[in-house]
Structures are given as C-alpha cells and as structure tokens.
C-alpha cells in the first residue's frame, strides 16, 4: 500500500490548467523522481501536497486515510515536509535555532543542549555532517541544504519533498546528497524530488513520474526506462509548426562571448566557460531549463553582472564589465525575463515607459529638457504599430495586461535596437495572439539585419524562430545546431544534461561537438 496516494488532482490558475487530473503514488522507503520541464506542473502538484495551494478537485490519501491539507502546518502534522529551492533559513541564527524555529511543542525556555544533542544524533544517523552551533551564514550551500533536511526529520517527517535539490550543489555535494537519500531510504523515509536533470533521475530514483503540460504522461520504474525515452516523454513528440522565414545570410559577428565565467547572486558559478557568437541577420536560440545560467547570461551581456573570466565583445569592441549605459549606447536592447519587476516602471505612464530608452537624445530631449509633445507623439505611433491596447498613452502601465506590457517593452527596446536584441523568455505567460506578435517582431528584427539572442524555455518557439540553437546546461553550452536539424528529443536530452545520449541521437560523438560558430551539417 502506498504511503501517499494523490488521485485526480486538478489545479487551475487564470488562463492555465496547471494540474490536469494527476495521479501520483508514493511507496514506503522509495525515492520518486518528478520529471518535467518548467510549467509542466511539478511544483504546483507539490505545493498542493504541502498545503500552499488548494486543489480544485482530487483526493489525497496518507497511509490509506483521506486527508485535507490546508496549510504547511497541516502537512507537517501528517509528516510531509518540503525542502524548497530558496532555503527558509535565518542566516544570523545557528543551525539549532533554525531547526527549532516555530516548533509548537517547544518549552518556553528550550534546552539548547538537548536540541544540539538530538541534531548531532540525527546528523550522524543520516550521514549529514552538520554542526548545531554553527551560524547559517558560515555554512556552504550544501550544508545549508542539510539543515533544511534535518529540520524536516527533526519534526518527524516521513515524506520529504525536495525541489530541484542539486540545482545549487557542486557535483561533489550532489553525490553526498545521493548518499544521504540512500540512508534516509533505509530508515524508511519516502522521498519525492522534483527535477529536470536526467542524471539525477537515473542515479537517485527508484521510480519516475513524468509530467508534461499539466498531465501525468508516464509513471515507470527507473530501471525499466532510459534517458531517451524519458526525454521524449518530457518534451513530447508534437508536430512542430515552423514559421515561414526567409533564409538569411548572416553578416558580421555582432556579439561574441569568449569563455565567460560568472557567478550568480548566491556566489555560485552560473556560467562556466561559455562561448558563443551571434551575427547580423541571425537569431541564436538558447534552450534550457531556467536556472542553468540564462538570467546570468543576459545580465553579463547587458553589463548588469560582473564577468570573472573571459570577455564579451559587441561589434568587435571589448565591452567586458562595462556599465549598462555603455552597452546600451552600443545599440544593445534587452527584453528582460521579469517584465513587471524590471522591464517597466509600473507607476509611470505608458508613454513614459516607451520613452525610457530614447529620452536622452533628440527629438525627445534637447539640452536636458524633455519635449513632452514629442514623447506623446512617439508613444502614439508605437501604440499603433505594436497594437498596444491601452486606454490612453497617459495610462499607468501597471494597469495593462501582461501581453500589452510586453508589447510596451518591445516597442521601446526594438525602436532603440541598433545592433543586438537580447530577449529573455519573451512570450512567457502570454496568450496565443500576443505570443505570435512577439515572435513576428523577433523575426522582423532579424530580417532587418540585427542580431537576436533568444533565450527561451519553449522548444517549439526556439525551433521555429531561431536560426541556430544551443542548449545551456549548468552554465555551459551543449553544442550548436542549425534549427532545421534540431530534434526535440535531442534538445530534451541536452536540457536534462544527457549530452552523450543527445549527440548519439544525431549520430555524433562528444568529441566532434560543434563549436560556437559553426553552421555545420552532419558529416
């Protein structure tokens, strides 16, 4: 009998069916991998289990008994706990303090010696070295993750959910985690881990469930399947719609990255020696699951993040670590991933937002003075061309729908773009119409001779819009392919880190993985 049984889980959000009648079984002492791309519904499903979301339909049974989980507290009471990607730890407190934080049954004056002893005992038993008296800020990310796991075990969790656990770990630490999972298994704990990485699935799990677009497409025992099959299940084998594009002959190199190394906000390596080029009149698509360095890539190009090693050249000028303004002045435009938080200023007018690139020069400004009439005229023109649905140009942009906000950003950035356009997840969360519009614009820019770098999680988009594609995995490129030759299955394998298997599908060896600039055809 499974310790956990979820049946028919349905969860809707405005505009999207995140979980579509999903079933999931978890047996005692097993490790279950939940595999899928972003947006497949893995996180939603787990958030339902942990009590952060209420399902619209479906049933959950723990140990055979039907239960209702309304909050993380309820889940905790049932022995279900989750280790999130963003750790819930107070960095200025010790391990022991974090472990007991918010615990109900604690005496008024907790006996910290007892707590420390119990933590030590648990950490020994589960092979997780952790010093109860250490402060969180002193610990490495891997050690912090152990604290999160210990927190759950300390509170008697029998079912542990881990969200992309190795996303923040070094390979060494990932291996150690694998050992810990084994020990926990032997102690009778059951685990679900959410992942998009094939290596983990094959190495750590007993069974794997694959979700795609909200539906459960497969539940198999790991030994009875292989990466190829899983990749195919993960990304699907749909007939792809390829847009009509004029063939272009790419011109001179506009953007060049040479062996770029950079770290993310937490100080962990995000880009590990990435090289690529983009030419005039071509669109380079960057595939990959978010979190493999995409954001950092865009920031490194636009001058918003420091490069530790390597260089960035734009129009043959070395702009490594230059200010964002210098990059903008080189004709680079950026459509950011976080359109509301970063791409617009919500409390200002649509017209103002559209003017935020061009306001430094005439005709919008002269001698430091803004010409408001010109700004409004320009905005009206852009609203017309880009079909932005807004009551007036003076409406505050935060009141526009997501699609229209994106169009506002597009209008601004495309008008200002002189050489390179960096678009990060440009059609994420948009309806069909808006998505079409965005893709059209990107192709237009390419036809007009600009270089476009398109970072997207949507394989269909990449294959239909881009000229060349590469997959970003753990901060490295997995090889470059012409879009016409890219197979969804191949890309899926690469996105999951299974490079060898991927290359094998197109008859290549790892040793002849194509270089950054090649438009190579298979020999």
């Amino acid at each position, binding site marked *: 009998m499974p310790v956990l049984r979820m049946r028919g889980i349905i969860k809707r959000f405005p505009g999207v069916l995140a979980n579509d009648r999903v079933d999931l079984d978890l047996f005692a002492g097993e490790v279950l991998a939940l595999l899928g791309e972003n947006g497949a519904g893995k996180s939603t499903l787990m958030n339902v289990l942990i009590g952060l979301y209420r399902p619209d339909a479906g049933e959950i049974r723990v140990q055979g008994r039907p239960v209702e989980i309304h909050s993380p507290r309820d889940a*905790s009471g049932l022995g279900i706990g989750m280790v999130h990607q963003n750790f819930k730890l*107070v*960095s200025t*407190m010790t391990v022991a303090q974090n472990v007991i*934080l*918010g615990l109900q049954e604690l005496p008024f*004056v907790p006996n910290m010696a007892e707590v420390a002893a119990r933590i030590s005992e648990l950490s020994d038993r589960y092979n997780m070295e952790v010093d109860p008296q250490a402060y969180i800020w002193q610990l490495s990310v891997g050690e912090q993750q152990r604290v999160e796991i210990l927190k759950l075990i300390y509170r008697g969790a029998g079912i542990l959910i881990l969200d992309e656990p190795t996303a923040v770990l070094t390979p060494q630490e990932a291996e150690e985690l694998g050992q810990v999972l084994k020990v926990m298994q032997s102690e009778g704990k059951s685990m679900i881990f959410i992942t998009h990485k094939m290596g983990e699935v094959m190495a750590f799990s007993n069974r794997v469930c694959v979700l795609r677009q909200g539906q459960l497409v497969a539940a198999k025992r790991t030994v009875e399947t292989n990466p190829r099959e899983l990749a195919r299940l993960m990304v699907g084998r749909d007939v792809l719609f390829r847009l009509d594009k004029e063939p272009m002959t790419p011109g001179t190199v506009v953007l060049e990255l040479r062996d770029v190394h950079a770290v993310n906000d937490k100080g962990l390596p995000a880009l590990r020696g990435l090289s690529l080029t983009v030419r005039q009149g071509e669109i380079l698509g960057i595939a990959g699951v978010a979190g493999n360095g995409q954001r950092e890539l865009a920031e490194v190009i636009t001058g918003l993040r420091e490069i530790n090693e390597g260089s960035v050249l734009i129009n043959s000028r070395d702009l490594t670590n230059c200010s964002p303004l210098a990059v903008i002045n080189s004709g680079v435009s950026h459509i950011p991933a976080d359109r509301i938080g970063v791409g617009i200023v919500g409390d200002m007018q649509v017209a103002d937002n559209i003017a935020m690139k061009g306001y430094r020069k005439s005709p919008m400004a002269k001698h430091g003075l803004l010409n408001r009439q010109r700004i409004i005229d320009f905005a009206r023109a852009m609203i017309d061309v880009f079909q932005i649905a807004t009551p007036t140009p003076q409406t505050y942009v935060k009141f526009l729908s997501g699609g229209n906000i994106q169009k506002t950003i597009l209008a601004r950035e495309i008008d200002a773009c002189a050489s390179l356009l960096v678009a990060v997840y440009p059609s994420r969360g948009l309806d069909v119409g808006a998505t079409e519009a965005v893709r059209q614009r990107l192709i237009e820019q390419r036809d007009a001779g600009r270089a476009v770098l398109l970072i997207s999680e949507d394989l269909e988009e990449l294959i239909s819009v881009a000229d060349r594609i590469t997959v970003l995995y753990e901060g490295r490129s997995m090889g470059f392919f012409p879009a016409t030759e890219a197979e969804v299955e191949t890309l899926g394998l690469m996105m999951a880190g299974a490079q060898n298997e991927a290359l094998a599908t197109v008859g290549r060896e790892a040793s002849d993985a194509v270089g950054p600039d090649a438009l190579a055809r298979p020999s």
Partner: protein
Amino acid sequence: MGVLALLTSIITITLRAGTSLIYGTIGETYTERSGVLNLGVEGMMLSGAVAAFATAYYSDSVWLGLLAAAAMGVLLASIHAFLTVSMRARQVVSGLSITLFGTGLASFLGERLGPESNNYNLVGMVGPKFSPIEIPLLSDIPILGAFFKQDILTYFLFILVPAAWYYLYKTRNGLNLRAVGENPQTADAMGIDVIRTRYIYTILGGALVGLGGAHLSLAYAPGWTENITGGRGWIVIALVIFAMWNPARAVLGAMLFGGINAVQFRLQAGGTTIPSAYLNMLPYVMTILVLVAMTWWETLSHLVGAPAALGQPYMREEK
C-alpha cells in the same frame, strides 16, 4: 569632595538620569526587533510623562500614574502599529506623525488637566513621586553604593534588564521574535504569525517607553514641564542602534549618553577646555560610526544582528 565620593555621586546621578532612557531603549529595541521602526518615541515619552503626573496628582497614587503612562504608550504605539503593519504605511512617516501628535497632545494635556486654581495648568504643581530609597549598608559602599541609592523604578530595572536579555536570547518567544525581524518570509514559512508578532512587540515597546516618561515626571524631575524629556526620545532611537539591538548593552549606552551630561559639569569645574557640546555630540557621532561599521563589515553585521527586515512592511501574497 574626595575622588571616591565624586565618582559615586556621578554614578548615582547617571543612573537616575539614565533610567528613563533604559526603559525607552528596551521598549524600542523590542519593537525594532520585530522589524518595526517607531520614531514616535519622543511623543510617546512626553505623553506618558504628562499622563503619569496628571493621574498621580489627582489620584494621589504613583502607581496609578505608572499605569496611565503605560496605557498612553500603548495607545500611541497601537496607532503606529495599525498604520504600519495593517495599513502598510511608511514607518518613518507614521512614527514622525506620532511624535508630532504625541508632543502636541502632551502640551495640550499639560495646559488643560491642571487644577482650576492654576489656570488648568499642570506646570508648577506638586504631586506624589517616587523618592530614592537608600538600602542600608549596601548604599554605603563606595562607588557600588550608587546602585543602591535609587528609586524603585530604577531598582526594577535590575530585574527588567536581565529579564529582557534572557527573554530575547534564551526563550522560544524571543527566538521567534528575532526571526520575524531578521527574515519575515522564513518566520512565516515556519508557522510564526508575523503580523501578530509585530503588533504585540510594538505595543509592548510603547508601554515601556511610556514608563520611561513616567520616571521623568514622577521621579527624576517630579512634576510637569514642557519638554520634560529634553529630547530623550530621540536619544533612545540612537541608543538602540548603539546597543546594537541588545537590551543588556542598552544599559552601557544609557550610562554613556546620560553620564556625559553629568560628567561635563564636573569637567568644566575641573577647568578643561573641551566645549561640552562636543562631548554631547560624541554619542551621536559614535552611533553613525557604529552604523557604518555594521553595514560595511559583513561579518560584524552577522554577529551583531541589526534586524535585517527593519523598516519593511510585510506582505505575504507577493507572487
């Protein structure tokens, strides 16, 4: 005066002067530990002082006066809590409004609550007060004896300060409180009610600040005068930072800030040429230096624990 006697008298005065500061600092420390900055301390202290004196005057009971002061502090702090925690107004602006309001209210009450015979003014009236109680034998010890020549409110501090320290660092509630100020998202995720915590400690802090005001009008400078606080409320805010949000260190800071005042007269008499103003400025400059040091040295700020979420409103549904 012999040197020992001089020192003893300096410490005695410093303790008396510092008592209201310590009450206020402990209160504001707890408030800020929950992530709420309350700049209304000056107004709360003044209102507390007038409430205490007026109540004591008419009821002839210092204890009722204390109660009134605490109640006044609770009232004003509740407004601040409501505005900043529930209505998510800017903490700085709300706090300053409370100061303005509290100051005005205190003046108003001072000019209207008095007896008819004095034109309704409380100024100049004499009411019950807390007198110093010298503890026999102990108060004769040189230097340390200063600690035993105080009034009962100061004696209560001997219990309150260690208790405040203990509560914050050793109990479950204190742990939860510190988490709320450091990282409300985490605290929320761990099941702690951030909103409730902020309300409780802001109001509690207000009560203590009110008591600080009571000490002024019922013990230190008995009676009521306009501006009886002399800016102490602002000193409290500096003290909290200076003590690095640690109630025990508040005592040291209060002695320092309060003591400089007491000392400077002696120094003048001794013929030094350092203008007293510069001495008075020193604590504020040092506070700025402490702020810079804390922000600059990551390690230091980890150890010192300025509540990381101080000043930010908390909203859970930020998706």
